[in-house]
């Protein structure tokens, strides 16, 4: 019996065809760093126009409880603190930093040396880390780490546990989204660092047991992680069934621990904290090397020539268009995976902390929407046990109260219903509206 959540789920074509090597994407000469790369309040800019900033220097301070710090990904001069159009086409506040030749060369050299050190396993051992959980949380806050699986919830907030003390830390290496391979690549190449980061995260949350969950379509990553985790106490690497949305927080908790999060409750109520492997890696970077979150691995894939489907270690703020790819005909760009990713209309916009991938699809013909035939396929696949057809109807007919009664707020917007619908009905689109307006 392979571990998985009990109800629903789908098996979309995986299309995980990108190379698992991590290439270094050169640092750009100009970066545009959004002050809101996380869920919650945008960071308050601390740098002003004309300021000289160093790589890794704080340029935006977390404003409010749910917020995250933002750091300079390159050294240079702040050209402006202004509004710019971001990838989704909407404006957001950004800090634009321009490098000169000299600082660019220095940054590049420092970066290469840093990653050489990261690859050297004798460096940066954190198993006897002297910091207390509070200090670790402060370091995570200081480094501006927010969940890197896509939802970008500030990690320090998640670790600040209230009444319920967590006993299990789950590190999410499922990467159930088709196409994406950034977590896979990270686990294969930096397994030790991810494990060390996981241990730090577990200590910061106060959990005794750490479980690293990886979908069984990534045997190499599982092997690498098992090897790296063998020397650690209370650390276990488990293979979970390849099924979408296995990487959903509530689904993963159910699969690994058998615990269920009550409707409307937070996952912490079951005594479990879930964090992504890339987040664990960023935590190790913050604690062992005092490096804030200014770089991340992103997958560039889709309908582009096979040699171009790669994972890049990219500085945040790098324009998406600087990544090397040939735009397919009738291109549709998606930030993240095809299931939950967001449509990107502006490729000059920057990579952010939550950008796990850039998926370039060439669009086919528009699919005809047929009437609902009441087959119940959406009900079968819904991992939350909801009735998507009903919620979508409520959304379409403006019946917000009914939608609330039918627990629309529990929908995780995984899109399994729309995927499974034989009539191509845009079920999730209307559920999203019902969810928003029934609040």
């Amino acid at each position, binding site marked *: 019996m392979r571990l998985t959540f009990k109800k629903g789920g789908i098996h979309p074509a995986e299309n995980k065809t990108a190379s698992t090597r991590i290439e270094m994407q050169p640092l750009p000469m100009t970066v545009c760093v959004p002050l809101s790369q996380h869920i919650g309040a945008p960071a308050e800019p601390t740098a002003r126009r004309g300021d000289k900033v160093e790589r890794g220097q704080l340029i935006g301070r977390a404003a409010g409880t749910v917020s995250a710090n933002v750091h300079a990904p390159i050294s240079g001069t702040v050209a402006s603190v*202004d*509004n710019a*159009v971001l990838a*989704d*086409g*909407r*404006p957001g506040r950004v800090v634009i930093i321009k490098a000169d030749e000299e600082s660019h060369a220095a940054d590049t050299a420092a970066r290469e040396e840093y990653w050489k050190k990261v690859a050297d396993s004798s460096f940066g051992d954190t198993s006897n880390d002297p910091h207390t959980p509070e200090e670790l949380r402060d370091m995570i806050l200081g480094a501006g780490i927010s969940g890197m699986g896509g939802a970008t919830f500030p990690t320090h907030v998640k670790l600040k546990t209230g009444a319920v003390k967590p006993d299990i830390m789950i590190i999410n290496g499922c990467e159930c989204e088709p196409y994406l391979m950034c977590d896979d690549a990270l686990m294969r190449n930096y397994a030790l660092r991810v494990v060390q980061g996981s241990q730090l995260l577990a200590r910061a949350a106060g959990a005794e047991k750490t479980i690293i969950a990886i979908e069984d379509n990534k045997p190499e990553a599982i092997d690498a992680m098992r090897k790296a985790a063998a020397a650690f106490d209370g650390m276990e690497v488990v293979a979970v069934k390849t099924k979408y949305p296995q990487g959903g927080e509530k689904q993963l908790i159910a699969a690994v621990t058998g615990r269920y999060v009550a409707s409307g409750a937070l996952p912490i109520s079951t005594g479990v904290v879930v964090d992504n492997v890339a987040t664990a890696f960023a935590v190790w970077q913050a604690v062992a090397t005092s490096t804030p979150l200014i770089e991340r691995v992103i997958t560039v894939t889709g309908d582009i020539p096979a040699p171009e489907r790669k994972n890049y270690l990219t500085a945040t703020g790098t324009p998406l268009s600087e990544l090397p790819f040939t735009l397919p005909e009738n291109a549709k760009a998606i930030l993240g995976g095809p299931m939950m990713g*967001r*449509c990107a*209309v502006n490729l000059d916009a920057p990579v952010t902390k939550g950008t796990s991938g850039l998926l370039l699809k060439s*669009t086919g013909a*528009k699919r005809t*929407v047929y009437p609902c035939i009441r087959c119940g396929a959406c009900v079968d696949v819904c991992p939350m046990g909801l009735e998507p057809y009903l919620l979508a109807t409520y959304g379409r007919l403006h019946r917000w109260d009914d939608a609330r009664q039918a627990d629309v707020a529990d929908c995780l917007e995984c899109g399994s219903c729309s995927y499974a619908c034989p009539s191509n009905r*845009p079920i999730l*689109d*209307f559920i*999203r*509206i019902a969810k*928003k307006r029934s609040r």
Partner: protein
Amino acid sequence: MFTFLLTVALLGMLGLIGSLILYFTSKRFHVDEDPRIDEICSLLPGANCGGCGFKGCRDFATRCVKQENVDGLFCPVSGQDGMSAIAAVLGVKAKAHARKVAVLKCAGSCQARPAIHEYMGVRSCAVMDSTGVGTTGCSFGCLGCGDCVAVCQFGALSMNPETGLPEIDSAKCTACGACVAECPRHLIELRPAGKNDRRVWVACSSRDKGAVARKVCSASCIGCGKCSRECPCGAIEVKDNLAYINPALCSACGKCVEVCPTKAIHATFSINLNSAES
């Protein structure tokens, strides 16, 4: 024959018991309702549009009777005359209420703001707004799928296929506010109809900087502030690169309409540009 009689007797008894239960419950739980509620209800349009802020016409009538006057209550569909009639039922007088109409704060027609993206989803503004930015480069303007038209119960809104924007028939508009609540981009505002139906408003909602806004839409407000300098009433404020005309201060003189370089300020009356130049 016996079976037949037994059936009739049994059913008759069941019916009798049922009717007795119904009779006594209706006596026991009888609610005295003010007959004026029904009277006011008959005066109301019965569209249950919610424009008054209550759940429906009956809820509104109940409230009128409960507070024994119509202060602070207004049925936008019935209008001033209707409210006077309702007040008469209660034996009071209705206060004067300025008529309002809906205006569209976007002028991004297909010509002024060409489509640059393709949208393949459902034709619904709400869906379009939740999945992306729409088909144009403007993230503030009208999405053009007509959610507001669908929600209007009075036929006051219609899509103009040439401009791709909804048009508001101010004669039919009852200012119920259904379209205001429906527009995912909050582009419709209820403004006082004004003296002699003269009103002026900024037909743009873009808070982008002037150059950016201008690039994607030739009819956008660029926040230059010319209108606010020209306004003799001090009614115009420019905030976040967007001008807003305060209807309480505006005298509808039309000076701002003349000076606006992008023609983003609309008026219900025509302005003689030649006389302004001479």
